[in-house]
């Protein structure tokens, strides 16, 4: 992928990610999050991870965000009123975030070999989904079963939580 496309998609992802935090209307935040996830999927494709990119669009931009919008509209949330910010909390938040970005930049620039270009790869005619599937169902088979059980437990838990009377 050309550097121009990379920076365009990275900028889209970061700008719309920032708009998720900045917007006062929850619906606008959710729609910004969808755009951010789509740009992130493009970045996954630029890293030759086609399967993860498709899963990102299907699961996140599709299912999860529809769930978010559904809940926002179900609860009928209005835009937040402008209120006086809690100054110590905001300052503390910005200090922590600034220190975090400094730490990330420090680690990235100290990382040896991180400024080399990616080596070329040849995934063969099967593509990456074949390789991911082979590893997923062989080496990580137990983990896959555990995740399946986790999703079953989560769906049962949601049904119990959504009952009108909690006993």
């Amino acid at each position, binding site marked *: 992928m050309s550097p121009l496309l990379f920076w365009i998609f990275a900028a889209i992802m*970061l700008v719309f990610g920032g708009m998720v935090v900045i917007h006062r209307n929850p619906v606008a935040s959710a729609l910004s999050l969808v755009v951010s996830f789509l740009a992130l999927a493009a970045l*996954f494709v630029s890293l030759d*991870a086609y399967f993860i990119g498709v899963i990102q669009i299907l699961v996140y931009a599709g299912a999860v965000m529809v769930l978010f919008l559904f809940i926002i509209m179900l609860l009928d949330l209005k835009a937040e009123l402008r209120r006086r910010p809690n100054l110590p909390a905001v300052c503390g938040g910005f200090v*922590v975030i600034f220190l975090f970005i400094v730490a990330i930049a420090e680690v990235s620039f100290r990382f040896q070999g*991180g400024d080399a270009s990616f080596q070329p790869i040849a*995934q063969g005619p099967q593509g990456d989904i074949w390789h991911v599937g082979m590893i997923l169902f062989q080496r990580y088979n137990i983990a896959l079963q555990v995740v399946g059980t986790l999703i079953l437990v*989560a769906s049962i838990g949601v049904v119990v939580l959504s009952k009108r009377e909690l006993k």
Partner: protein
Amino acid sequence: MVTLNDYLIVSGILFAIGFAGVLLRRNVIIIFMALELMLNAANLSLIGFARYNVHDRLPDYNGQVLAFFIITVAAAEVTVGLAIIVALFRARQTTHVEDINTLKF
């Protein structure tokens, strides 16, 4: 030329945006969305490292499988979390964290 460092820095900034959302916003649903941003930033750096470690002209697919698991668990987490938010809204008619301070010290 795009390098691993570029991906790591973009991923770090995305994580910081999500972190800022969790720290600065007061609406539970927005906090939840910011949490998703942080999970996705972790995914981006995982995929970047997977592409960086090339063996036999193939990327390291273990990282992609881990990202797959993160996406799956995050989807389960979103369903449970939103169900909790709906139950909370039924009980208290609010989604602001400042109104939910029973357990606050």
